[in-house]
């Protein structure tokens, strides 16, 4: 079967899922089961088809599974958000449309994505600017001690979501140029690059630390820095770089955890979620403790869709259920089975991403695909790991599932870039 036909067929399960999902919510809410769920399913299918047509026209050789996987994730997200709050789901659906527009725009405008290399310093500067934007007085916003969002009139968005794409593009381009230089000089038997080559990379480390200071978010900086180290390792094939990198990050994180109150609070809440003092404290361990309680109630099979206890009256039991804790809601309702299934879908997505990186012919494409995929994977790890108490809980979104406009749009751009790389790689491979 041709790649595009496989993609078309792959969209079917996503559409069935969203029809079944909305149907289940209607049943649960005990309003009459109208044709509304079918309508939602049809609109969703229509949007997916539009995306499919764009890919068919512009990227006929691109990976056929990425779009269906993303559609499945998005439909899970829409249904769960709809079940939590109808208004938010409508917002999310609108963001989904905007995300698809960004997706189409990326594909149409970046016919040859390698032109990005030409603007790498502009992109890097713009990304830095975006990262620091939330600290600009007047538009910056602080939530739970972290500076992640900005507000422009009616629109709130998290510039870091877009900054991460820009930084990866910059790094892919920069590392393509310097990878040979980074490993060329040996001193005392170990690879020791010159300062002028390693300098910009130390700058990135400094940037990650700066993010800890300015944005005060451990999760985001772990995501950025992890993506950077993965690219550095792929570029040089020297384990020493990521090992030293993680060491430096660890030292920095430890330092800030013990000096920046908000980061330290998150760490102690992670270590002792049931400590009565931390539990009562505002911004303490209440959220993580409730997340664990919700998951425990889910058990193996879950409470059933729409059964999760999210709030009593107006007081929420699961704070930020639609964003940070959406994984806890899913595990509560669909159980361990549902949680593992969701993780497996992400593994499929990541596998496609790395396959694209492996297939790609040139270094820039390989590094770009690796970076984008790693950042998405680490974002899943940071938020699911936070919710399941593997690491301290910090507020990043679960890609394509959590409520959040900037996240949806940025992630669609990432998928578009991966498809662009994939189309080129597969066409070249066929030749």
């Amino acid at each position, binding site marked *: 079967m041709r790649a595009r036909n496989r993609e078309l067929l792959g969209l079917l399960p996503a559409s069935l899922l969203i029809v079944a999902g909305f149907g289940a919510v209607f049943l649960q809410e*005990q309003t009459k089961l109208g044709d509304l769920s079918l309508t939602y399913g049809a609109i969703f299918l229509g949007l997916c088809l539009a995306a499919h047509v764009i890919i068919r026209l512009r990227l006929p050789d691109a990976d056929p599974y990425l779009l269906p996987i993303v559609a499945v994730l998005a439909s899970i997200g829409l249904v769960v958000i709809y079940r939590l709050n109808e208004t938010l789901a409508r917002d999310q659906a609108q963001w989904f449309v905007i995300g698809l527009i960004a997706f189409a725009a990326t594909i149409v405008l970046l016919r040859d994505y390698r032109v990005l290399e030409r603007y790498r310093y502009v992109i890097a500067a713009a990304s830095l600017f975006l990262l620091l934007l939330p600290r600009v007085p007047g538009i910056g916003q602080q939530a739970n001690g972290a500076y992640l969002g900005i507000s422009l009139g009616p629109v709130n968005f998290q510039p870091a979501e877009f900054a991460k794409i820009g930084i990866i593009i910059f790094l892919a381009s920069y590392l393509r140029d310097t990878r040979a230089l980074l490993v060329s000089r040996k001193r005392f038997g170990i690879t020791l690059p010159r300062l002028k080559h390693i300098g910009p990379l130390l700058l990135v480390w400094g940037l990650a630390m700066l993010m800890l200071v300015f944005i005060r978010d451990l999760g985001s900086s772990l995501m950025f820095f992890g993506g950077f180290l*993965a690219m550095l*390792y*792929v*570029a040089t*094939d020297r384990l020493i770089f990521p090992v030293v990198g993680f060491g430096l990050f660890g030292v920095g994180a430890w330092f800030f955890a013990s000096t920046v109150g908000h980061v330290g609070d998150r760490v102690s809440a992670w270590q002792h979620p*049931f400590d*009565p003092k931390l*539990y009562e404290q505002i911004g303490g361990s209440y959220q993580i*403790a409730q997340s*664990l*309680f*919700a*998951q*425990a*109630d*889910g*058990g*193996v099979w879950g409470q059933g869709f729409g059964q999760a*206890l999210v709030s*009593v*009256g107006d007081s929420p*039991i699961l704070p930020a259920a639609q964003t940070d804790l959406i994984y806890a809601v899913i*595990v509560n309702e669909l*159980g*361990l089975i549902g*949680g*593992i299934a969701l*993780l497996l879908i*992400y*593994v499929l997505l*990541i*596998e496609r991403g*790395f396959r694209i*990186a*492996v297939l790609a012919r040139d*270094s820039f494409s*390989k590094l770009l695909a*690796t970076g984008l995929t*790693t950042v998405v*994977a*680490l974002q*899943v*790890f940071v938020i*699911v*790991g936070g919710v*399941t*108490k*593997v690491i301290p809980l910090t507020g990043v979104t679960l890609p394509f599932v959590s409520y959040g406009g900037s996240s949806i749009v940025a992630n669609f751009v990432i998928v578009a870039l991966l498809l662009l790389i994939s189309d080129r790689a597969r066409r070249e491979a066929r030749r």
Partner: protein
Amino acid sequence: MNKPIIRVFALLLVLFGLLAYFTTRWTVIDRAQLQDNPQNKRQLLAQQKIERGSIIAAPGTILARSVKRPDGTYSRRYPTAGLFAQSVGYSFLNPGTAGLERFYNGELTGRTQGLDQTLRKLQGKREQGNDLQTALDPQAQQVALDQLAGRAGAVVALDPQTGRVKVMASVPGYDPNLLRSAKATSALNSAAGAPLLNRTTAGLYPPGSTFKVVAATAAIDSGLFEPDSVVNGDNGVVISGVPLNNDGGEAYGDIDLTTALTQSVNTVWAQVGERVGKRRMDRYMKRYGFGSPVVVDLPADERLASGDYCTVDGRRKIVSATASCVDIGRTAIGQDKLLTTPLQMAMVASAIANRGVLMRPEIGTRTIDPEGRTAYQNKPQQFSRVMSAASADKLTAMMTRVVQEGTGTAAALDGIDVAGKTGTAERDVINNITQPWFIAFAPATDPQIAIAVTIEKTVGGFGGTDAAPIAKAVMESLLR
């Protein structure tokens, strides 16, 4: 460059494995622990949406019911206020649940309904729990509370033939409706006299001479003694190396066991206890239920075990009567290290009343589902056969004499034979503080009711003068 790419993928797979493992940990491995965490209110919150079943007393009086709040959740109301406070318990988001409310939580919330509840849910009907029917008698309970008249103490009455609990009074009490407010709850928690404590099952007191009935059971049922066996009842008999005195230092000379019980002669029963020995005494105590938490349908942490409490390795704990720290002579007269719950002593009376067969005490009789069908029948169950029917008859005759002409005449009822035994435990010899007891059953010929009464502290009071009249009033109310 492909090799490092695959390695990065492998590392991420390991990280995702970690996520899967931790999800498994919270949903399966540590599940019960998380659900039992006191900070976890999810189960309780979920139950607020269920119309909890009512708790109903014997004549149909509602002891606990659910009322719907404007937000669609339900809240608990206790129409009889403090009447059955500690036994019915309470069920609120804070401070949680206690008593019957806790023990029958599954039934009251309908979780045991299984398929029926699922069907009702699918039909969109509201969730409704089962009602709990009890054998509790509000009128007799009120008499018991009136009689205790604010003095700390306890009254337990049960039907010896079925084990049904009719009266379970513990003073001081509280109004469970007040527990809706957090302030009242914390006030009650630290209040003097521990009103939240169910003294009938969790109050441990020296039983005094009421325990002589247990010694008599061991003595007669084992065949070592007969009611007319003669023992010397002089004052100052040396027991375990220390001379023992009778009440008022009286010397009785050679008397039979019936007289010794009627007059509650310490020296006779202490000698009997020594003759019976630790092993035999231990066996009969176990048959009565001593040595393990008193059995009744209340939560485990509201029930304590009766028996000898010794300090072992710096910690006070219950030991069997065979332990070396036990003075068996003084145990036989309810002194030394012996501590009992009032319910345990009511069980002693109940076993003799039911001709040697001890029935399991139960408060709940059945649960009724929302369609009015019996969901669960709590059938009377035998706890143990303590003694032969013949031995029980002999003990009944002896205990009847106690009320007819001995220390327990204050419990006598008009035209009805009462079998009983008084007890007066010394709590503070210098200030003459005593703990009066009375255990009894009636009618002696066809027992309908077995009872235990105690008052924690009186100045110079006796079982016969202070506790027996309370037992009389409660029995009168129950036999009306």
